[in-house]
């Protein structure tokens, strides 16, 4: 036999009363902080030594919010008697977070693992122009990038 149910009108009062006695789920933000999940898309960080100024990120950005400038430098040859090597040096790497829409295409497209997602989210500014962050600032965010999560069981490890 089915248990006789309370009418919904009374049950609703019970629900609100029970909810009132439970602790609230609110996090009092400036006083206490939640830890965002490790894969949260907070802000984009730059690992400068990996960057080869290939411009793929800047060209794939739908908002054109990445500004890259670089120049070529001669370096001594690796082997004795060889030709001088040419390396690209990054002069400027700015992301305009007033334009960025956090699509993550630049992070996906980077062939040398120079761009990473960081879960840091507290970088608001009082002036929209100050949201243009340079490579020094982007490099500082590298410290907040978490270690990649361990692979799932059975996943193929890249050789």
């Amino acid at each position, binding site marked *: 036999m089915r248990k006789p149910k309370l009418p919904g009108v009374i049950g*609703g009062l019970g629900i609100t*009363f029970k*909810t009132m006695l439970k602790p*609230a*789920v609110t996090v009092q933000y400036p006083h206490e902080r939640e830890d965002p999940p490790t894969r949260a898309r907070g802000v984009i960080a730059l690992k400068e030594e990996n960057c080869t100024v290939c411009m793929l990120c800047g060209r794939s950005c739908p908002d054109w919010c990445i500004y890259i400038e670089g120049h070529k430098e001669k370096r001594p040859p690796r082997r004795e008697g060889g030709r001088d090597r040419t390396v690209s040096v990054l002069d400027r790497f700015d992301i305009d977070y007033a334009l960025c829409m956090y699509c993550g295409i630049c992070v996906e497209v980077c062939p040398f693992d120079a761009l990473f997602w960081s879960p840091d989210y507290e970088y608001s500014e009082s002036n929209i122009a100050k949201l243009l962050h340079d490579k020094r600032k982007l490099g500082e965010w590298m410290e907040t990038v978490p270690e990649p999560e361990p692979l799932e069981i059975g996943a193929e490890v890249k050789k």
Partner: protein
Amino acid sequence: MIPAVHSLLALEIGWGTTLAIKTVMILMIVPLTALVLGYVFLLKMMSHMQSRLGPMDPGGFHGWFQLVGDGIKFIQKEDIIPGEADRRVFAIAPAIVVISTFLVFLVIPAGPDIVVKDLNVGVFYALAVSSLSVIGVLMAGWASANKFALLGALRAAAQLIAYELPLLLAVVGVVIQCGTMNLQGIVAFQSTGAIFGWSGIGFPLIFTQFIGFALFLIASQAELTQTPFDMPVAESELVAGYMVEYTGFRFLFFFIGEFGTAFAFSAIAATLYLGGWALPASWGISLGVMRFLGPLVLFAKIMAVSFLMFWVRFTYPRLREDQLQALAWKFLIPIGLINILLTGVFKVAF
């Protein structure tokens, strides 16, 4: 009130001073109680029922200063009167709503002699005066020259008049049982009464008039235009009903009126059904002590009744306009009449 002050300070207080003290008390009580109810229930209880905290920062301790700050903000705002509005009526309307609340507090006793005017027709007066606010609401809606305001005001008028009846019928049961309309008399009846000869907790009328108590709460919920009966201010249909054109301190008046009236109705319910300021006479507490304890006892009972009112308010969604009218005319009024009949029969039988 005045003999209490006499006995406390051993002072001679003249007629003018008495009047001044009474006026100040009444003028203070409506905004203060509106603040208390607004903070305790609207800001805090509703938040916790929705699993959030509500304001926490203003004032340092659990956001107690939030409503005071809101009041200051409202006073600073520009007083806008629409160009097409009937300026004089538009300006007076909020005051009428608040005045009807002030007038209710005149007869509510908070102690053996703490009452502004101990009327013989106290219950009748309180209900008559509380329905004055309909006029203010209608004036506000009509004078705003806004179709939403007018619709809201008409809904309010239809609703307040419809629910005036069950309110009155519910109270008639109490009046029959006590044989008096004097609120002090009703309090005394409940304090000195006995349930089948046992006078341990006096005789709160909620035990015999529980139908009346439920009717009174439902009807007062509608009188206060609180959810589930808030069609006059239904924000999703009528923006804010009759208040839509009001800004600044005139809007604040409506807000104070709403919560002050909620407190007033809770006070009437606490007095009629829960024994008012009095503790059971058999406990043997002297009247001198009750002068100071009475207001606290009444306040505790009022908060209990307000808790019921606001609990319902924060739980239910809005009814439809026809459901609202059907509830009043098809259910509440017949039940009220049956309650009167039963009360009369039992009064004669016992």
